[in-house]
């Protein structure tokens, strides 16, 4: 592809990736093409963005995150936060996911922290991008050696919570231990939230040790669905 035209191709790829779930074969073609583009335009953040979105669509979150992080790093553009959000949900739910009002860098950083935890990639170069509360949660997980459990529990929660759910993290010390709260905001009625909270507790108590359950606590809140 000639120099000076990466944007056109970028948009074409984005359109293809956004239009549905790409196949593995198509992904390979996209990667091949992107590598060619990269040679002609090594600083093109679109390479990372498109590849990240494609990988997310294939549920290859671990591979997608570094690509999206690179894209994010190159530009504080809002669209990159949208791409990070893709990791949470399946492709057909994308449009609803974009209802989030993404208009500030703190929010984007929050998305990134969530993506780091979801991906289980706690490497320093990614953590360096976080600030404030977001980095404190990730650091708390690392200091207490609970990073694998945090990722595992969060992935599990994302899997079992209904679409429309929002997540946030907080950490503080209690009894000398780092405690991480995962706040889960449901679109539901109060009685459903009470019942769902117990379902989550039941599911987690079957999978995790008491030590982990004392230290990683999912807190439920709700908003009545419009």
């Amino acid at each position, binding site marked *: 592809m000639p120099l000076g035209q990466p944007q056109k191709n970028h948009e074409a790829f984005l359109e293809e990736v956004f239009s549905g779930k790409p196949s593995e074969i198509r992904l390979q073609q996209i990667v091949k093409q992107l590598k060619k583009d990269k040679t002609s335009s090594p600083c093109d953040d679109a390479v990372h963005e498109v590849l990240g979105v494609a990988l997310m669509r294939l549920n290859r979150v671990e591979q997608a995150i570094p690509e999206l992080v690179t894209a994010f790093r190159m530009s504080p553009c809002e669209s990159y936060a949208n791409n990070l959000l893709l990791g949470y949900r399946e492709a057909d739910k994308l449009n609803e996911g974009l209802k989030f009002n993404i208009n500030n860098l703190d929010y984007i950083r929050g998305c990134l922290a969530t993506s780091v935890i979801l991906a289980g990639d706690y490497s320093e170069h990614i953590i360096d991008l976080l600030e404030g509360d977001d980095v404190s949660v990730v650091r708390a997980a690392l200091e207490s050696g609970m990073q694998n459990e945090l990722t595992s529990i969060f992935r599990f929660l994302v899997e079992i919570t209904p679409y429309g759910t929002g997540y946030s993290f907080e950490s503080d010390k*209690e009894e000398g231990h780092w405690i991480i709260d995962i706040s889960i905001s449901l679109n539901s009625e*109060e009685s459903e939230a*009470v019942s769902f*909270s*117990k379902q989550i507790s*039941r599911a987690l*108590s079957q999978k995790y040790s008491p030590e982990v*359950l004392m230290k990683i*606590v999912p807190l*439920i809140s709700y908003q009545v669905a419009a």
Partner: protein
Amino acid sequence: MITSKEILKLARELLCDSEVKNRAAIGRAYYASYHAIKNLAKVKLGYHAPEKGDRQSVHWHLCQFLISHSEESIQVIGCELRKLSRNRRKADYQLNATIEKNNSTLIVAMASSIIDDSKKSFIALDTDSSDQQMDA
């Protein structure tokens, strides 16, 4: 003398449009469930609170005891009590955070629900163990 039921009643009465009262409601809801469950655990499960000078607080100790129990229904009660405890902590210490009214009502509803659950679960467990003893 007062009962955990009265503390829960106060929690319900505190719920209104005032955030400070809603925070207080969260605290009362937690303590209502803490006392109710601790008493049931003592009677039905042989739970003993930690000695004075123990490294762990009574709150941590009770949750850990319940979550570590072999019965799933008791573990769930432990997990739910832990959530209430964390919410109580947030309501009492994080003054900068905003606590929405609907979430305060949720915490009170959760407290009420696990108190009911604990009565059923602990009594069922007691009956099971009595049946087993009779079978033996």
